[in-house]
């Protein structure tokens, strides 16, 4: 027994070492930086140890803006994209013809580069001196005034970002959900039909529990992905996200390190740790909720 477990550890060693060097060590390091005040990576020096970095970050209006943006993004896009994907998947799996036709179409966003898609979104929504853009043109048909979605009010910009995020993450979710739906044994539906189960009851009492592990996987990864959003915002609003008021938490961390106002690894570390704690908390809550509602 002893020897066998020793051997097991030996096999695990490369993986453990790798994870340790590239994952655990940096995490610990960031944690340490976040408490070293005025750390300078060039001279490897710092003034003192304390919670000052956290206090600075939490009072930084840019950070608070980024925090708010990120939360809005998460709260809107995760339920919306998952719900829509579920709706579309159920539709796709119940209509055979649609399945084949849309297989490529709905997958296009997934294989297209984020920045390229962002550019297209920007062109669709942007209002310039020459044109109001395609979306405004359509708004005009319905009698709504032109809105500058890229440089205009905050809600309009948030709308574009959410729209974009939902659109980009949807194909993957649809892919996962359609295959989850297809893997539900047809006999369950046959049994339900013989017992005269209504469609809605079949959906809520059979289909949903059956695909709940996949759905849960999508919700967790959806949360994590949305909390880490950054490149999407850059693609639409450019690199100066703080000025646009559209920064995200990862964006804030990046700016603190490398941006024009950057060079503050301690602040960046503190912000990164805050993000880490938030994601960890949300994931734990998700796991707790899933215990009751996910059926493996």
């Amino acid at each position, binding site marked *: 027994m002893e020897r066998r477990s020793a051997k097991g550890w030996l096999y695990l060693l490369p993986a453990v070492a790798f994870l340790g060097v590239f994952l655990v060590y940096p995490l610990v390091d960031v944690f340490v930086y976040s408490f070293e005040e005025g750390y300078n990576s060039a001279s490897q020096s710092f003034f003192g140890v304390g919670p000052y970095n956290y206090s600075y970050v939490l009072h930084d209006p840019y950070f608070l803006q980024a925090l708010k943006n990120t939360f809005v993004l998460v709260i809107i896009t995760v339920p919306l994209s998952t719900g829509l994907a579920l709706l579309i998947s159920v539709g796709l799996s119940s209509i055979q013809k649609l399945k084949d036709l849309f297989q490529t179409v709905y997958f296009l966003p997934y294989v297209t580069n984020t920045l390229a898609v962002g550019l297209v979104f920007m062109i669709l929504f942007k209002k310039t001196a020459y044109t109001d853009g395609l979306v405004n043109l359509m708004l005009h048909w319905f009698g709504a005034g032109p809105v500058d979605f890229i440089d205009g009010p905050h809600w309009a910009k948030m709308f574009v970002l959410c729209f974009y995020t939902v659109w980009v993450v949807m194909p993957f979710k649809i892919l996962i959900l359609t295959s989850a739906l297809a893997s539900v*044994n047809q*006999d369950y539906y046959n*049994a339900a*039909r*013989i*017992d*005269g189960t*209504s469609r809605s009851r079949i959906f809520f009492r059979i289909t949903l*529990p059956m695909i709940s592990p996949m759905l849960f996987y999508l919700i967790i990864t959806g949360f994590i992905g949305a909390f880490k959003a950054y490149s999407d915002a850059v693609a639409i609003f450019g690199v100066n996200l703080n000025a646009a008021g559209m920064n995200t938490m990862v964006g804030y961390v990046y700016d603190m390190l490398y941006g024009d106002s950057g060079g503050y690894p301690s602040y960046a570390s503190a912000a990164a740790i805050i993000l880490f704690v938030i994601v960890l908390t949300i994931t734990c809550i998700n796991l707790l909720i899933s215990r009751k509602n996910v059926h493996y």
Partner: protein
Amino acid sequence: MKVVLQNLTKRFPNRNKKIKEDVVAVSDFSFEIPDGELIGLLGPSGCGKSTTLNLICGLQKPTSGRIFFGEDDVTDLPPENRGVGLVFQNYALYPHLTVRQNILFPLQNLKGAERPSKEEMLRRALEAAKLVQIDTLMDRKPSELSGGQQQRVAIARALVKMPRVLLLDEPLSNLDARLRLQTREEIRRIQRETGITTVFVTHDQEEAMSISDRIVVMKDGVVQQIGRPQDVYDSPVNLFVAKFLGTPPINVFEGEVRGGLLRLGEDAVLKAALPDQKVWVGIRPEGFAPEQAGPLHCELRAVEVMGRDISVVAGHPACAGTAIRAIIRAEDRPDTQVGTVRFALKPHKVFLFHRESEERLAVELS
């Protein structure tokens, strides 16, 4: 409830899209199932048993033909209005629901006046569970049950709505040998107690023979023979049915009738009043009697003792299979030193079949 199937036919477009021709899963099936009987639907896999069951319960619509429950024509009724219970081969228990919730599920689907009160539902669920003896497992999930217990839950779920007809699709094929024996007795008991007309699908002839009031033997969608198990065994209508029923299986020989005598190779074994022709000869394992001067000369290969009976493995030039297997009483045990054994044949255990059509030839043997 009497069930009448009238010229039922079901065609499917071929799954292999390159083949234009339809698959005929069930072909011109007519049968009247008497009220309260247990019918064994028997045949090799792919012969259309499940399709027949699906037609009866309404999951599939027949291409032509009609189905009656009693006097009602149910052909165009959806499954939920037919009042059938179906037990699936893999049970199809909802894995996220407890045994109680699984059994309650069909009742909770009922609407309006049909819907019983909550207490009534629980009472009926418990009653069904008691019938199949799982009333102590009500709060477990299906994954916490053994195969046999899951099977019982599936039966309880099918019975709780008090169906007019109970359908079981290969219900025992996922159980191990001992449980299978036990569960099939159980199914027989439940069927007797409830008196529900039941159709039991299986590809295992022993299973069908042991519990059915009547068996239906199918091949390639076509009914071969319907009758009481013993009658079908004792007088199969064709070579297929003869081969399909019985363990060990029937021994098949290439024989010939010449001058009123049935010949297996060189041996003239029985008198047969037939014009000269080549035939297939089927001899049940229990149709051989070792005899010093018996007409059938066989090469003795092995003797297997099975307790009361023994099984003799022998060879013969006219045998269509690899070996003959005969079941004889232990005291008739042949001497293995000799290397040959001679048999007399019991005429009522010997069947002649047409060489081409493989239909049974009506003939008096002696």
